């Protein structure tokens, strides 16, 4: 078969793919490019400068928002990963029916519902029970919607794992805890790591819930950036965005390298 008549070859598909990848990275490139713009107007280029990075790093409110985001994300990640790990330990050994099937659906529920609906629901609940601590509200809500993101990689990792190793450890008189810590945990570690990374990024990234629950002292980074954007685009915003892009790329690459290593080891 030559290319002209080969049905597997679709003319134009390659071009579409090429344009697709350019289009995928163009917006990110534009943001990074204009972050070095000396001009106060984003889209009017007037020379190279790194002054907006200096301005961003000296912005007290920005750093405070980053701190809130980071604290919430770390606590929510630890909470969500522990909850997901416990649930995955049970669900990967249990039959897929009855209460266990229901539990699996419950763990994944935040993925099924539109985030704005859940955000409104927790807002009403917190106002009804009189919970006013902004940070606590954020941590509780973030832990909940991060749980399925931590759960899925752990669950997938456990699915391919045989229980024989753990049983062998038990036969050698290891206590359940020792068997878990010395045998099971090292085997599922890549899944746990990938899940925790995902949960952390999802929490750091969240806008809808954090915006609705926003109160003084608990403004997260995306909510703060949203406020800045509303006041107008500036190269400082581009500098902040560029720093966030770099952070995301580092985390994403670490998570992907980790999970691909986990897959090749089997």
């Amino acid at each position, binding site marked *: 078969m030559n290319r002209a008549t080969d*049905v597997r070859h679709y003319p*134009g598909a390659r071009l579409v793919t090429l344009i697709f990848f350019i289009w*995928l990275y163009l917006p990110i490139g534009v943001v990074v490019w204009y972050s070095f713009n000396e001009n106060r107007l984003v889209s009017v280029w007037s020379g190279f400068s790194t002054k907006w990075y200096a301005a961003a790093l000296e912005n007290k409110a920005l750093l405070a928002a980053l701190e809130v985001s980071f604290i919430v994300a770390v606590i929510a990640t630890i909470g969500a990963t522990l909850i997901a790990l416990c649930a995955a330990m049970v669900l990967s050994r249990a039959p897929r029916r009855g209460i266990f099937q229901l539990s699996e659906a419950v763990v994944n529920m935040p993925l099924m519902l539109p985030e704005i609906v859940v955000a409104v629901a927790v807002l009403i609940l917190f106002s009804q029970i009189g919970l006013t601590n902004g940070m606590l509200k954020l941590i509780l809500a973030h832990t909940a919607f991060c749980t399925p993101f931590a759960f899925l990689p752990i669950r997938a990792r456990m699915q391919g794992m045989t229980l024989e190793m753990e049983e062998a450890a038990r036969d050698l008189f290891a206590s359940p805890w020792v068997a878990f810590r010395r045998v099971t945990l090292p085997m599922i570690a890549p899944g746990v790591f990938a899940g925790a990374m995902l949960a952390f990024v999802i929490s750091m990234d969240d806008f809808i819930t954090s915006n609705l629950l926003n109160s003084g002292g608990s403004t997260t980074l995306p909510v703060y950036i949203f406020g800045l954007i509303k006041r107008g685009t500036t190269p400082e915003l581009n500098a902040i965005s560029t720093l966030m*892009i770099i952070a995301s790329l580092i985390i994403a690459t670490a998570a992907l390298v980790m999970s691909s290593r986990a897959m090749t080891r089997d």
Partner: protein
Amino acid sequence: MTVLRSFRFWGLVPAWAIMLFTLIIPVGIVIGVSFAERGAYGGFEWSANIDSYRELLFSLGWTDELEFTPKYLIIIGRTLALGLATTAICMILALPVAYIIAQSPGRWKPLLIYLVTLPFWVSMIVRVYAWLIILGNNGLAEKLWRFVGGGEIDTFLFTPGAMLAGMVYSYIPLMVLPVFAAIEKLDPALLEASHDLYGNRWVTLRKIILPLTWPGLAAGAILVFVPAIGTVLEPMLLGGGKLMMMGTLIQSQFGGARNWPFGAAIALVLMAIVVVLLMLNARRASRKEALL
């Protein structure tokens, strides 16, 4: 073994606790609030009326008579239309891209898939902000428009098209990945068989590729459509806040306008749309299993 056996129960307790507390009970309360009365100073007062649902379709006229007002139906319609358009564009884009990635040499595949997912890790607000710059004053879109000799335009921003551009960009990886997974499972022998039977590309696409990758397309459609109809950032930033979608309408009822029962009612309408979709999808999936 008793420790392990009791763990079968205790291991699930934290998950149930957090989901009951932050999801199941709150959604139950939302259902209650949607039938409540609007409080005098924001908030709500418990009661049992359907005013909030009536407000979706009717408003009170001068003499307290009900007048049909399509104001909110238009917002719901716009939300569904933009959600469907986003899903359709993502499908059309994802098919050739996933097809080319699936056909590329083995060692290229992980890299290409990595490149597809990478922008998805970049913060949502940064990605929407990027489109604000591209479509904004003197931005790349305007420069390109003038370059190709397009006529005078005011601005690309604050239009449904701007929202659509942002939404497609935000959710496209969620379509490419399942479609890629489906195309990769496609047996190339089937394509050759189609060719041997004098099928041309169009027939092969319609009779072989599309039916066999349909599960991937359907999965991608759900993954894109559900977050797309609940989206908030695109209408607020690229739509300028004037062109509301359901997400922004719900949010505004808990902010400035402060009609909690009405906000709860719209949230439930949004949730109902999603639940119906997920149930249809589950039925489709189980029917397929029954066939196999």
